[in-house]
Structure formats: C-alpha cells, structure tokens
C-alpha cells in the first residue's frame, strides 16, 4: 500500500508533501483563533474540491450541484442528532446511503438516458435547486426558518459528538482532507482511475475499448457524493445552523468548484492549493478593505469572479501545473 502510494513520485515532491503536512499539523499551536478559523475553511473547501474533482477532474462529468450532497449530509446528521440523539459519526453512516442513493439516482437518470455535457450540468443544478425548495418546505427539519443544533460551552473536546474547540474541528477536517488526498491518489492510479481518465478524454473511444462507461461514471458520481456528504456532517456540527437557502444554494455549488479549478482540475494538489490561494487572497482583500474603511457586500464575490475569469483566460489548466513546473515536480496527471 505504501509502495503503491509513493510509486512514481519524486523525492522532491515527497519532501514537499511531508513539510506541508508537518506545517498543517503544528499550525494550531502557533496561529491565533482567527487564523485557525480561516485554515478550517481552507481545508473544508479543499476537501469538497477534492471530492468534486473525482467527478469532473477524473471522470470528466461537470457537476454544478455539489451543494446538494453537502446539504443532504448536513441535514441527515443534524436531524438524527436533534430528533434521536444520534451522534455525527453514526449520522455519517446514515448519510452515506442517503447521498449515495441520491447520486445514483441522478447518475442513473443522466447516464441511462444520454444526458451529457451541458445538459448534465443543468440536471445537477436542477437537483440541488429542487432540494433547496423542498427543504424550505420540510417542517420536520425547520423549513426555511432554519435548523439549529444546541450551542453550549464545552469544558472538554468531545470527538465522538463533535462538540468542542476550533482546534478539534481543525484536526478532524485535516484528517478528512488527508484521507481524501490519499484516497484520490489510490483511485487515480487504480484500474477505475484509468477507466475514468479514458472516459474523460474520449467517452466513445473508451466504450469502444470495452469499458462499461455507464458503470464507471456511476461510481464517480456515487464516490464523489458520499465523500462530499462528510463535509456536510462537519458543516452541521461546526456551524450549528442550517438554512436551505444557504446550504443548497447554487452560489454554494459555484464556490465549491472555484478551488479545484483555480488550483488545477484533475490534479491532486489543485483543490488544496486553490483553496489556500483563494482564502489567502480573500483575507488579504478583507484586510485591505478594512484598512480603507470600505464595507461593500458583494466585493468578495466580485473578487472571486475576477480570479476565476483570470485563471480561465490565462492559466486554463490551473495554478498547480504551472507551479509544479516551477518547483520542478512532475505530478503524474493527464
């Protein structure tokens, strides 16, 4: 397993990865609470970006509705906690079949009936919007008025119930991100990963060589959905409040895809790098605006839009491939 993980990776890349991991591990000891919150966001977006990347970056299926899986994961875990006192980890175990079924349903409809390309992207938006409006009218989980988890001061960190200090949430998200990274690396260099890449590059050719494209596209959607749902569980217990208008909103789905696109679609480091760049730039912008005494809603999003535009126009493969060349690390992608 270890050998499989590190096979074909240059020593330089391994060293860089180890340094990065060490820095992330000791970060909570050296940064203040504010920065820690920002780092949690970075990991949160990196994790979801990694999960989205399985569908788009590996298998070439553009989803613009990943807020659906975050929302379903969040509502499943929160509802079980509030109504039955079931903790988040068991809640995640329930969220897995829920989101897998939802992803499978969407995938089945789309792939069985040849809904591809732009139609597929629209279908994913439609599903998320459908869920948003549905949950707005779903009184059992609070409807549009929101769904809240009790917030108390906790004397100690309770990892089992995910109640505690920001540092605990940080390490949970770091572990999830690291696991997702490893899982994606293993997937990408396995049989299934090669099939996905074949489908991404040319689906008809892939089918001609005997790949069951329907089955492997289904795998991509389901794996991506289930992975994303954990971010939802985390979201519910970290923020303690859920509103359909926010968690299922299309602008959320767009926000999720920014990090992997800016970092580099289809690369393993892309989502992490993209999330880090975006958060750093956004925080920097916030500082500058605060210094100038400007407080305009929309400026942050406008800035994201301009970043996306610039990356799409100037670095269509994202920042990571460019940076990897600069660092003289060749990641085995594409």
């Amino acid at each position, binding site marked *: 397993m270890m050998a499989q993980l590190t096979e074909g990776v240059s020593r330089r890349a391994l060293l860089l990865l180890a340094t990065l991991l060490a820095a992330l591990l000791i970060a909570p000891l050296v940064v203040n609470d504010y920065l820690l919150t920002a780092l949690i966001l970075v990991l949160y977006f990196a994790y979801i970006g990694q999960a989205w990347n399985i569908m*788009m970056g590996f298998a070439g299926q*553009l989803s613009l509705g990943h807020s659906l899986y975050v929302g379903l994961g969040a509502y499943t875990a929160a509802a079980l906690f509030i109504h039955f006192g079931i903790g988040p980890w068991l809640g995640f175990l329930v969220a897995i079949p829920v989101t897998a079924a939802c992803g499978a349903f969407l995938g089945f*409809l*789309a792939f069985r*009936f*040849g*809904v591809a*390309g*732009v*139609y597929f*992207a*629209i*279908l994913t*938006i*439609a599903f998320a*919007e*459908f869920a948003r*409006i*549905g949950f*707005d*009218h779903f009184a059992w989980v609070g409807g*549009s008025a929101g769904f809240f988890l009790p917030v108390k001061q906790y004397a100690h960190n309770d990892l089992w119930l995910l109640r505690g200090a920001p540092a605990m949430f940080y390490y949970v998200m770091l572990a999830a991100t690291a696991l997702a990274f490893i899982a994606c690396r293993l997937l990408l260099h396995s049989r299934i990963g090669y099939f996905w890449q074949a489908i991404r590059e040319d689906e008809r050719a892939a089918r001609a060589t005997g790949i069951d494209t329907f089955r492997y596209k289904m795998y991509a959607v389901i794996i991506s959905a289930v992975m994303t749902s954990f971010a939802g569980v985390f979201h519910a217990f970290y923020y303690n409040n859920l509103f359909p208008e926010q968690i299922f909103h*299309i*602008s959320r789905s*767009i926000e999720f895809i920014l990090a992997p*696109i800016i970092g580099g*679609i289809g690369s393993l480091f892309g989502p992490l790098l993209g999330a880090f760049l975006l958060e750093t730039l956004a925080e920097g912008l916030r500082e500058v605006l605060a210094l100038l005494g400007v407080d*305009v*809603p*929309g*400026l942050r*999003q*406008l800035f*994201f*839009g*301009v970043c*996306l*535009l610039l990356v*799409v*126009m100037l670095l*269509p493969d994202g920042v990571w491939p460019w940076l990897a060349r600069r660092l003289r690390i060749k990641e085995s992608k594409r």
Partner: protein
Amino acid sequence: MASRDRAVPAEIYLNVAVSGILTGLVYGLMALGLSVIFGVVRVVNFAHGELMTIAMYIAVVLFSAFKLDPLIMLVPIAMVLFALGYALQAGVINAFITRPEHTQFLLLIALAIIIVNTLLIIFGPDAHSVQTSYAFDSFQVGKLIIDATKLYAAAAALVAATALFAFFRFTDTGTAIRACADNYAGALTVGLDVNRLYALTFGLGAACVGAAGTVLVLIIDVTPQVGPVYTLLAFVIVITGGLGSMPGSLLGGVLIGVTEAMAGLIFTPSAKSMFAFAILVLVLLFRPQGILGRKIS
C-alpha cells in the same frame, strides 16, 4: 394562496392560466435569446439571466430618474444589450470557441459572478420595481380578467420575437448566420466572416434577453440575485422547448409560465419552481431533444 377548505371557482383557474400564458411569452423571449446563441455559436450562455438583470436595472433607473416607460425604452435598451453582447463575444468569447466545453462554461460563470456582484455593489440587495400609471388596470372579457401590464408585456415580447424570426428568415445577414449554424466549415469556405457573425448573434441573443428584461420589470421586482434564477429558468425552457428551435422556446416559455402559475395557485407560490424542474427532468428523460427539437444523431 387558495384556501384549502373552500372550492376554488373554475374561472380562477382560467384567469391564472391566462396570466401564466402572458408571463410565459416573456419567459419565452428571454429563452429565445439563449436558444439563438446556443444554436449558432454553440456556447452555453451561463450569464443569460445576469444579462437580463442588467437590462432590468437600466429600465428601473430610466424610469425612476426620467419617468421613461419601459415599454417605450424597449428598443433602446435592447440596443444597449446588443452592443454589450456583441462586445462580449468579439472581445472575450470568440477566443474560447475552440476551447473545451467546460472551459467555456467556466468563462461564462465567471462573467455571471462578476455581473451579479457588480450590480449588488452598485444597487444594493434591495428589490427595485417600476410602478406605472397602468399598473393596476385590467381588461374584462366575460368572466376573464386580464392584467393590462401582463398583456402589454406579452404583446411586446411577441413583437420582438416576430422581428427576430423575420430577421433570420428574410435578411441576408440572417441567412448567413443560419449558414454558420448549419455548417461551420462550409461557412468559412464560402468566405463568411464567422467571428463577426458570431458576435452579431450573441448581440441578438443579448438584445432578446434585454427586451425580455425590460418588459419583465413591469411584472416582477428586480434584485441582483434573480440573475442566476432566470439563467436556470431560461435553460429549463430551452431544453423543454428544444434547443435550437425558435418556436420551441416560446412554447416552452408558455408551458413553464402556466405550470408555475398553476403550481402557485394549487400548492404554494414559493414551491412553484419545483414544478418547472420536474418538467425539466421529465423532458430530459422522455424527449431529450425537447418538444419541438430535432433529433440529434
């Protein structure tokens, strides 16, 4: 919302249906713009609803500052949007024609984000509307009561759509654009300036959605956030009616307009979009080329 314990008189349904048809025609004009752009340029305009909000805000500003009625400003605003669309295609999107499909989406999504938030910064998040002197007028035909504003809006939409049909059918430029759509390589071979025709087409699509937005402010309030909602609605309509079919867009618009109006009456107005999405899913499953679309081999 209709009360549940009392039967709703039949003419209410009829009134709501007519109201849905009229709104649907405006939706249809909006979707027509998307369909024209996709049919010719093969670029999916993810910033369609956002372009419409620009037109809506221009109409609102002109009305509140100079008391200019949106129905009178329809042509000038459509021309502004035409110029904007032309510049977008010629300046940015033409360079992306040969890029992968998802890169084009992302480019337009970036433009959409920029438009929404620029409008948010300029106008703030509050809803703006246009209150005309005829806002509460209506015509009565038998038991049928027709809202005057919606009737004018629908009539304007029909005129604009007809003008577009005529342009594509009877002018040389329109024929040249249709040639580009039918056979890209052929159009290049006979020496058509495809880039200019693409810019022209995107401009026409933007003008359509601009005209639709100008009359739509008579019916609905505008906030910066409605942009993405209408982009999505335009897609639902175009896919339902058939991508690339111009009558299909109008038909799809009417169908979605009536569905939303009926769902608002029978269930609750806030859930009406769910039914539009349900129609989308049904169409994608059973007639993916749309109601009037041609089968793609």
